[in-house]
């Protein structure tokens, strides 16, 4: 166990050393300085964080270990992108010689039309794609929790109005809503986070409301209510910990979903735009060349598959570990 911990902890310094050997000034470049600091702090973070409680229970399972490793690995690649990427994702090569080079020793994942290194682009794409996915999920989960909590707590007419509004929002095809929102603006990554967040809260609201409702009459929640505590206090101190399990698990599953939504938007040309790089954007630029220059779309696609699989495995295992009635088969949550 300690050996494995040491290996994980060593990743940070190794990445730093690797960057330093390639180019001594690289770790101190302005765009890389944050990554450098994280790499330095990494061994301490690993040493300080021990999986306890639910995390430890979840990690007993193979799917959680595989999923967790994938997710952690991808997050680290995103975090250390400037140190890991061979060159800048925007660096163009010789218009004749470096154009559409297939994967090889010099460019592991080949180059694109402008001679840009695909490996660097995929690594930097992880930053944008993962940030958008995580950001939009945080936004939609926050919003959904708020709506669901108010509906569940107040009950009666407030509940009716809010949940019918949720049904209404859910009845609109999400793509249509997204297109509508995107149509009015120039798509920046921040805006895409907002758009995906605003169109993804409904199922969270339903989940929270459904989990919350029966708990209002349960043991210490009822006791807390009988003591005349305010609604927010009861919610954050007594209810939220109780529903955290399904909520965390569900959120994890949503991340995979958001990655796909972002790539879909970018693929349509409504998502991330140059000079930003995202996986969806990369796939889009390679879509017409699949039969010839297959590497353009294949590797970003592979990255998306690995991310979604990683988050889904992790979410599944978390849901099982957080379920008070364990040993039950996980039931699929509908979107």
């Amino acid at each position: 166990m300690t050996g494995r911990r040491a290996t994980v902890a060593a990743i940070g310094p190794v990445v730093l050393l690797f960057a330093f050997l390639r180019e001594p000034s690289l770790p101190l470049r302005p765009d890389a300085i944050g990554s450098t600091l994280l790499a330095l702090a990494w061994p301490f973070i690993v040493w300080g964080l021990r999986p306890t409680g639910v995390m430890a229970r979840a990690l007993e399972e193979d799917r959680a270990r595989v999923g967790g490793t994938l997710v952690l690995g991808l997050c680290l690649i995103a975090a250390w992108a400037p140190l890991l990427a061979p060159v800048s994702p925007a660096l163009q090569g010789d218009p004749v010689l470096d154009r559409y080079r297939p994967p090889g020793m010099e460019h592991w994942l080949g180059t694109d039309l402008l001679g840009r290194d695909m490996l660097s682009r995929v690594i930097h794409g992880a930053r944008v794609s993962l940030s958008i996915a995580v950001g939009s999920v945080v936004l939609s989960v926050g919003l959904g929790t708020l709506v669901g909590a108010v509906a569940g707590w107040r009950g009666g007419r407030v509940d009716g109005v809010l949940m019918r509004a949720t049904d209404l929002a859910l009845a609109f095809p999400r793509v249509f809503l997204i297109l509508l929102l995107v149509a009015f603006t120039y798509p920046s990554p921040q805006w895409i986070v907002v758009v995906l967040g605003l169109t993804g809260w409904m199922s969270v609201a339903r989940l929270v409301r459904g989990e919350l409702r029966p708990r209002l009459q349960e043991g210490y929640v009822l006791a807390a209510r009988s003591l005349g505590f305010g609604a927010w206090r009861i919610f954050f101190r007594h209810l939220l910990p109780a529903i955290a399990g399904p909520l965390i698990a569900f959120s994890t599953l949503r991340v995979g979903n958001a990655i796909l939504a972002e790539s879909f938007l970018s693929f349509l040309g409504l998502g991330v735009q140059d000079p930003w790089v995202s996986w969806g954007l990369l796939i889009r630029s390679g879509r017409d060349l699949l039969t010839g220059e297959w590497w353009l779309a294949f590797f970003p696609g592979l990255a998306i598959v690995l991310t979604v699989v990683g988050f889904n495995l992790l979410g599944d295992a978390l849901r099982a570990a957080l379920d008070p009635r364990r040993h039950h088969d996980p039931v699929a949550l509908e979107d």
Partner: protein
Amino acid sequence: MANAVLELESLSLRLRREGRTARVVDSVSWRVARSGSLGIVGESGCGKSLQALAVMRLLPRPAVDFDGGQIRVDGTDIIGLDAESMRRLRARRVAMIFQEPMTSLNPVFSVGEQIAELLRERMDMGRQQAARRSVELLDEVGIDDPARRARQIPQELSGGMRQRVMIAIALAGEPDVLLADEPTTALAVTVQARILDLLDSLRANRGLAVVLITHDLALVAGRSDEVAVMYAGRIVERAPTARLFDRPSHPYTLGLLACRPRIGEQRRTLPTIGGQVCDAFERPSGCAFHPRCPFATERCSQETPALADEGEGHMVACFESARVRETGVWPGV
């Protein structure tokens, strides 16, 4: 009577399930004065606990909701009270101790923190003062080594101690009325007695009014001024405690008294009341108890007896009460 701190007047509650409604509590009236105590006795499912939840305004609505009547705290009806005023009433005026000591405490905070939470939120105490007071309260409810216990989480305490922690929390708000729903069911007999003694001393010293809800007639015997016996959502007999034990006038009360084991008795098999409590949706016609009642006549299955005063504060809802009182024993004993 102006000095009643808590008064129910023909309170009715209805239960709605699958489009059908039933009255689970039907026109129940009682009152309890300062320093007074009332015992509410009945089998499970007779609506005793729902009354307590109704007083706290914590009914599992919309499944169970008010269906007429009044609940007056110091003369003010609280059924129509806005949520914020109701919130301020809880713990400070009316407090409740719940049945399950195992689930009624939050498993992730120490018991000291949970008492202090109430003191800080509702009693405007500072952090240090609240911490000190919570240890005092634990001491008051008879927990040994209170300073150490305050730092423990509920799972580290026994059922009896948790129940006492619950009582400490309820008392922390210095309420006028305490609704105790089976406060000692989970406890050993000696602990039971200590807790009831504690409630008695609080009645005497602080003027606390206690409503003791239980299925155990013996428990209320020495502890309450008045006893109300409930059957199927109604009060069937209500009388000063001594009188009720002396001259039980409702067959159901008679049955409950007969089912108790007594010290020094030779008999090995305890008598039982045949049949079972009726479902709220399948209430028998007339008096709800008549299918199980050895005194039942033709009239009992057709008309519902009203709660009538038989003098000296003794109320009975039975057509045959005179005959019951005269017989004085459960037939078949």
